[in-house]
């Protein structure tokens, strides 16, 4: 099945392929079906922090970082993760914890179901955008739906988090 050399391999149904990747700093080998999405694999392997909220790639709760970029794990082919670095929220505990302090200080964390995925998007945004304004923040994060907070509290928390991080760097 492993096809680095360009050989095509006959794959019988229910025969798994193996992918090798790094999850939260740890090297892992997962048995996957070629058409399977990463979310199913991660949850099956016990990464329950990666949530499932819809069937259509619409809600953002399943967000993980792959090579530092936020992706919807529900819409990312598991085979594509072969050789990649994957971070769930638990792999970024220090940074997530910093953001958590600002988010929970606004009360907008609410039910929390969207929060691990949302937080990963926020962390990715902080790394990707330099001094984003309000509109840029909202646009970057618009793929993370939240039904509880009305989003305003998120924005308050993010702004303070970015300011504090900025102050730290100065």
């Amino acid at each position: 099945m492993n096809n680095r050399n360009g050989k095509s391999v006959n794959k019988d149904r229910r025969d798994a392929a193996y992918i090798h990747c790094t999850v939260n700093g740890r090297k892992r080998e997962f048995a996957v079906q070629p058409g399977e999405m990463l979310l199913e694999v991660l949850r099956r392997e016990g990464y329950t922090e990666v949530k499932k909220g819809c069937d259509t790639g619409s809600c953002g709760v399943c967000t993980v970082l792959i090579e530092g970029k936020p992706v919807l794990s529900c819409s990312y082919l598991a085979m594509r993760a072969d050789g990649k670095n994957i971070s769930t929220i638990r792999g970024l505990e220090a940074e997530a914890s910093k953001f958590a302090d600002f988010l929970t200080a606004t009360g907008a964390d609410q039910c929390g179901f969207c929060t691990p995925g949302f937080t990963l998007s926020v962390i990715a945004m902080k790394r990707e955008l330099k001094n984003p304004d309000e509109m840029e923040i909202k646009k970057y994060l618009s793929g993370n739906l939240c039904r509880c907070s009305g989003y305003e509290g998120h924005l308050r928390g993010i702004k303070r988090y970015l300011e504090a991080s900025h102050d730290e760097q100065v």
Partner: protein
Amino acid sequence: MEIRYYHRPETLDEAAELTAQYEALVLGGGAWVRNHKKYAEHAVDPMHIEQLRHIEEYSGGVRIGAMVSLREMETSDILAARYGSSIRDALQHIVGVQMRNIITAGGSTSARLGFSDVNTLLTALEAMIVLRKGSEELHVPVEAFLRGHEYRKGVFVTHIEIPFLQKNGAASFASIRRTFTDISVLNCCAVFHDRDYREIAEIGKAASGPHWHISIGSRPAGPVSAYEAAELLGESRKPEESAIQACLEKIEDEMSFGSNIRGSGEYRKHLSTILVKRAIQEVME
């Protein structure tokens, strides 16, 4: 989705051959086939083919590899410098950054989704799809690619080439959606090309001189070009008010629109004139 035979070729030649040989499903980002394709006998995954991953300029325009993500297009300095905000305007609504990090340029065109913002944009920009049919390389206008049945099976898309707008050219993308991240109720793109038409033999269009190109998509069917309406705008980037009016009337008269949950055909017909007008006005500015 279930895949019976999964192929992960290392080279373009191999990918093209496998695709042709098995009429294989070529995986782009994989996001759409996840929900809309239950089973593929053969799938070709080009994830290891390096030359499909770049955005680069060539003599006549910008070439985008099939495996370039929409997010890479959206944030590309090369594309922004050449086509202004139109690229970003067309891409920014597509679900979210996380999805745009997955969806690819090649996958977007090949999926031929009626509501595609990308295809409406590429149509008006007069992009060419570079594809392989086995060992043969073809350059196909995006519009022909979207419609032609001969490109649906066994074809491996390698690049998208967008010609430069030249000198005074400009592009504008406009859309209406229920929410920001929803698909379009209707989308359109107006482009003033300050150069000749390419030969578009497949759809029988050719002309010389500066010209307008208007495409309208999510009707809810996929994008079509309003050639005759665009011709009414003449060869200037600042057409007369009366020319614009004539163009809009032509669109209203001749374009066909359908109904779905996002809007009726009647509403879409109305929207088409509003959005096209706004896109033209933005290009004029």
